[in-house]
């Protein structure tokens, strides 16, 4: 029994948040497997994976920013409107003032930054709750979008469309795959090996227990297998397709922001502010600056997401951004963030977002209507968070422990204390 818990601990890390992520990842895998079978293998075809990535990358980008906002103890309801507003401004600038598209992107990011500064100012320096500021922003920028766009649909130039609908070019010898995607996959494999090695080194320096080598090996093998599989799928689509450019933007952002939130002083400060703002302030954290930065960052990412959507749709329309904020917020909460702030990870939010995306996609492939899809998504959100709350009230969570409970009675050593509570006991004693 304890060997199984050890294994779980070694493979996924022992802490509660990791257990939570383990839960989410298994849900994701379950959804993929379920739909893969249900749709006769359509879910994991190259074409579908590519479509899913380009369809949901902008929501996932929003989820990254939203995670930070929620961790800091706020919420941003305005992202959809900000995205739509940026979209129309950029589209108009390019169409009517023939702004070259790279400058268009720059303009969009600047618009996002300006809006973010506006919202951040009210939240951080005046102290208006973010819920109110962004609710106002939601109306304000939706209105601004209609004012500028006259509710028209404004097409964007071909070059600009690349960031939403573009693919990596085909270069090099004909390998039957998109070569650049293969290279990216190779880099990713090297990356995970390097990271694992680095992690072992760190643990050795800390004099912490090292996981047995075979465990590391298995974990690496699993990760590499996933990467290789994904690479071949994304590289093996129709000629002219590859990992979508929007997907590459997303991956770059996820890597950068996970690093930032986990390993830097700035990231720590966001968690500190969300966990206990007053304590953070008394520890020298510049509360206002953190709040400002988080809100501003969100709007910049919303602007980027808006532009990617417009690029993918080839035009900016009056319906852009409608209820995106809800999708992004749902992804973050499914990914294990706490409503009260201070908890949550970028990778968790991405997994949460992917759960929603694949659910959506799988149901659509099955021809389930959008009304039912909404109902199912709503239930998933509720259950995911309820599950979390329930686990918290029940102490620690152990999926494997739960799964193996029925067998434990037959265990000859049935007197052994159940694993999770046993470790709790140590703590209780310490707390005594």
């Amino acid at each position, binding site marked *: 029994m304890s060997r199984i818990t050890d294994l779980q601990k070694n493979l996924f890390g022992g*802490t509660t948040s990791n257990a939570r992520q383990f839960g989410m990842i298994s849900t994701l895998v379950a959804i993929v497997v379920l739909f893969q079978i249900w749709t006769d293998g359509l879910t994991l075809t190259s074409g579908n994976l590519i479509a899913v990535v380009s369809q949901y990358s902008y929501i996932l980008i929003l989820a990254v920013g939203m995670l930070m906002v929620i961790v800091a103890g706020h919420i941003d309801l305005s992202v959809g409107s900000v995205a739509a507003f940026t979209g129309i401004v950029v589209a108009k600038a390019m169409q009517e003032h023939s702004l070259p598209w790279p400058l268009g992107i720059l303009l969009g990011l600047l618009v996002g930054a300006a809006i973010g500064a506006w919202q951040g100012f009210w939240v951080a320096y005046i102290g208006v709750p973010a819920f109110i500021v962004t609710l106002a922003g939601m109306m304000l920028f939706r209105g601004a979008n209609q004012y500028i766009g006259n509710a028209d649909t404004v097409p964007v130039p071909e070059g600009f469309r690349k960031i939403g609908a573009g693919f990596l070019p085909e270069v090099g010898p004909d390998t039957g795959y998109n070569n650049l995607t293969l290279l990216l996959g190779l880099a990713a494999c090297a990356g995970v090996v390097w990271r694992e090695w680095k992690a072992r080194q*760190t643990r050795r*320096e*800390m004099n*912490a227990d090292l996981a047995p080598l075979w465990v590391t090996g298995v974990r690496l093998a699993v990760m590499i297998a996933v990467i290789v599989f994904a690479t071949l799928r994304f590289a093996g689509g129709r000629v002219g397709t590859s990992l979508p450019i929007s997907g590459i933007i997303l991956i770059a952002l996820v890597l950068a922001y996970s690093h930032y939130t986990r*390993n*830097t*002083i*700035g990231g*720590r*400060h966001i*968690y*500190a502010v969300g*966990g*206990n703002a*007053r*304590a*953070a*302030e*008394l*520890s*020298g*954290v*510049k509360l206002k600056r953190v709040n400002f930065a988080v809100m501003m960052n969100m709007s910049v990412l919303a602007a980027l997401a808006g532009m990617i959507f417009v690029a993918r749709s080839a035009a900016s329309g009056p319906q852009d951004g409608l209820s995106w904020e809800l999708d992004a917020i749902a992804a973050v909460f499914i990914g294990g963030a*706490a409503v009260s702030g*201070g*908890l949550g990870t970028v990778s968790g939010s991405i997994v949460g977002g992917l759960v929603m995306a694949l659910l959506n996609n799988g149901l659509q492939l099955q021809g389930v209507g959008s009304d039912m899809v909404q109902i199912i998504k709503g239930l998933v959100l509720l259950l995911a968070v309820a599950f979390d709350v329930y686990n918290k009230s029940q*102490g620690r969570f152990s999926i494997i422990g739960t799964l193996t409970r029925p067998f434990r009675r037959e265990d000859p050593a049935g007197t052994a*204390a*159940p694993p999770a*509570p*046993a470790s*709790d*006991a*140590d*703590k*209780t*004693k*310490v*707390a*005594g």
Partner: protein
Amino acid sequence: MTPTAPNLLEMRSITKTFPGVTALADVSLAVREGEIHAICGENGAGKSTLMKVLSGVHPHGSYSGDIVYRGEQVRFDSIRASEQAGIVIIHQELALVPGMSITENLFLGNEPRRRGSIDWKSAQRRALELMEQVGLREDPDTLIKDIGVGKQQLVEIAKAFAKDVKLLILDEPTAALNEADSQHLLDLLRGFRERGITSIMISHKLNEIEAVADTITILRDGRTIESLDVKADGVNEDRIVRGMVGRELDSRFPDRTPAIGEVFFEVRDWTVRHPTSDERMVCKGSSFQVRRGEIVGFAGLMGAGRTELAMSLFGRSYGTWLSGQVFKDGKEIRLKTVADAIGHGLAYVSEDRKSIGLNLLDDVKTSMVAAKLSKIARRRVIDPVREHRIAEDYRTSLRIKTPSVDEGVVKLSGGNQQKVVLAKWMFTDPDLLILDEPTRGIDVGAKFEIYGIIQRLVAQGKGVVVISSELPELIGLCDRIYTVFEGAITGEVARADADPEVLMKQMTANKKSPTP
């Protein structure tokens, strides 16, 4: 109370286990009718669990053993059931709604009704009666948030009377009260005794227990150690401490030979306005000095302005700064933000660990380095190895009891949490540490250790300011004590002259002697 009074309550062989841990093992408790019964024990000894068993928080069936109350075996399965039997527990964290009036709070969940709607007239009348019983003189329409903690406590007790209490259980009733309010509360308990109401009191304040209790039951590690009759056994504080920790504590304070150096930190004419009220000054021209290697105490009643003074110095974290200067090593320094203060070698360990001292979501190591992340970062990226090593070092040197530095701080006991907070501020390498109530809610053993840490800090030539509401602590620990009253420093007492009476006088009567 008569010595032969029958037992109102008997708890026999109570055993309560949580998965993997035994919180109570064969605990027995006998409370005679009409007495004040104190339950003592270190944190985690099982006092609260025992009271939870009694009040039905842990329902019948989740523990083994019997409870006999008023001669009958009882099985409470909820708080409601125990309250109906007249057992009312008043927790340390008061269960009052701040935005409601005294009357509304008194009858919350128990509102007198007439024809379906609340009968406010009779509620008001009853409220006045109840308030009279506990000696609370306030307009019953006053909002809870507008009265002090002491009076709030009285409201809680009055609430118990509204439920027709037979057995009143008070968990650390004076922990948040100042000297005068505590005294009032103890008098009140004595008064209840006269009227035949039985009380059980859980407290860390041994002097209070000694003063008021008839019987003392001591718990340790989930077992009953002994039951003492205060009068018959001639109980004093040392006797109780011995029972609680299982050994004699030679001294409540570790030995120390002060090595006091030059004045290095000085505050002149510090004046701060209340954050919301324009009229009120929370610091009125306060001036004080700290020498290297010196422990300076700040004595004062609750709300005298000690915390406000400390926090306003610490990067203007409280109120509106009006005037005053701060000098360190003879040079004036400006402390406009917390970062400035930390940069100039100040550290402030707050009074309230849980609400403003720690991020309870953090683990031990993250908490320890939180106030000076730059020390473990290279180009703003945190070095996990260094973080881990530093945390391990503190864990060993401060003897923090935790299975690992990756443990969440929320799982640590109060004493260990306080050590984590101390580590956090020691890590900033301060010259002056301001410790606000550093031992509140901490058991005897941990207190001793924290005094030891403070003494080690001053031995390194740092200055330490201790704010405390416990005079014995200040007298035992400090080289010099300033007294504070209504925002002004009213006196300065050297170690040799410090005794509770002198301090109390200066803390309560505004002697016109502003120190130079």
